[in-house]
């Protein structure tokens, strides 16, 4: 086994595992890239390191200087990943977090020394973004990395996740991933389209707009600048909704192939299955999907053990995605 000088060297180069046993069609293979194997537990480790290194390169952050503060809105994984990197680099991190995320996320943030600033749960991630923006304006000395607009987010997926996928699965025909900041889809999608233009890029979305009751009008809506900057509407071939029930069902089904994953990964797998169902019986296809994180942070949801109707009801009031 290689020996590493820093845990940061463990970020990326995640394994791909064949989960075709769950494919609805024998002619369609489904492969899952296990991003939960990153050291702070999610795909966001790649993004966090990329955002911080970009800020260090452009001089907004200076390694070793004391008293530097960062602020970032996050529903969990980006905050946790940033907290881990900041702990190693000596930066102070303030995470704007909706009140209705799972308690494990709050605990992990605190474990890595981050400070939590609560934003209203009813406003979802939109509310966290808005509050972080206003706090950043009021405190210009804080470094605001803003993952939703920072090109270092899709860039790291273009430079690492995309090449890893093509190297490990050269026969890929479809890429299916969750849409949040859109960083994974824009970065991997751009890389795959450049090298294999025929690969179809599918986005999976939770219907979170249904649950965000803090929205006063549609004009309070939000499209991540990264999505617009990368011409996401043309890069994507398809975008589908996956409902909370389907997400939980597929989170459970993934245990049949030995995978204990987060609820957004259940949603991504549900999207991969929807994608498989569109493929003709006579065509061979290989779908790659992203397992964004493992299940540990979601144990308090009862997702694997409670009655599914109860879990679905709770999911409507909690941000799991």
């Amino acid at each position, binding site marked *: 086994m290689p020996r590493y000088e820093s845990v940061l060297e463990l970020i990326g180069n995640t394994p791909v595992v064949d989960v075709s046993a769950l494919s609805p069609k024998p002619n369609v293979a489904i492969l899952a890239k296990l991003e939960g194997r990153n050291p702070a537990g999610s795909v966001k480790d790649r993004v966090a390191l990329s955002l911080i290194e970009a800020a260090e390169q452009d001089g907004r952050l200076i390694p070793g200087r004391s008293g530097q503060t960062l602020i970032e809105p996050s529903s969990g994984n980006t905050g946790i990943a940033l907290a881990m990197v900041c702990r190693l680099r000596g930066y102070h991190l303030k995470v704007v977090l909706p009140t209705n995320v799972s308690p494990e996320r709050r605990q992990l943030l605190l474990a890595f020394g981050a400070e939590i600033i609560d934003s209203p749960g009813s406003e979802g*991630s939109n509310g966290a973004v808005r509050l972080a923006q206003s706090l950043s304006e009021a405190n210009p000395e804080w470094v605001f990395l803003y993952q939703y607009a920072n090109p270092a987010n899709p860039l790291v997926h273009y430079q690492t996740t995309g090449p890893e996928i093509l190297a490990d699965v050269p026969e890929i025909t479809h890429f299916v991933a969750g849409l949040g900041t859109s960083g994974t889809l824009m970065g991997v999608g751009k890389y795959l389209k450049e090298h294999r233009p025929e690969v179809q890029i599918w986005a999976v979305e939770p*219907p979170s*707009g249904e649950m965000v009751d803090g*929205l006063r009008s*549609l004009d309070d*809506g939000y499209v991540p600048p990264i999505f617009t900057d990368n011409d996401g509407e043309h890069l994507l071939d398809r975008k589908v*909704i996956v409902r909370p029930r389907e997400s939980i069902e597929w989170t459970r089904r993934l245990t049949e192939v030995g995978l204990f994953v987060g609820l957004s990964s259940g949603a991504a797998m549900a999207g991969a299955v929807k994608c498989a169902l569109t493929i003709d019986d006579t065509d061979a296809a290989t779908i790659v999907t992203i397992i964004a994180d493992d299940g540990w942070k979601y144990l308090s949801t009862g997702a694997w053990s409670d009655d599914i109707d109860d879990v679905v009801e709770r999911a409507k009031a909690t941000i799991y995605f």
Partner: protein
Amino acid sequence: MAAVLRIPTVLRPAMGGESVIAVEGSTVGEVLLKLTTTYPAIKGQLLNEDGTLHRFLNVYVNDDDVRYLGGVEASVTNNDEITLLPAVAGGVW
């Protein structure tokens, strides 16, 4: 053609408080245009002046985003389920 339309919370006050209604039209554009005739208050919330979809409105036919199925030209058939959702920031991903 009768299809079912699911209305998001944010649009319900201007649409009689309903969450689900039956709608007519053979394309998404036709359905939305008819809605703006019935509920003039939501006109600027659904379509732009040029007839394209409002930037912060996502429209799904049977859970498929119509922006990738031809936009307002996407076809609607009997018993389809149309869902309107505001575009909001995602979470963990």
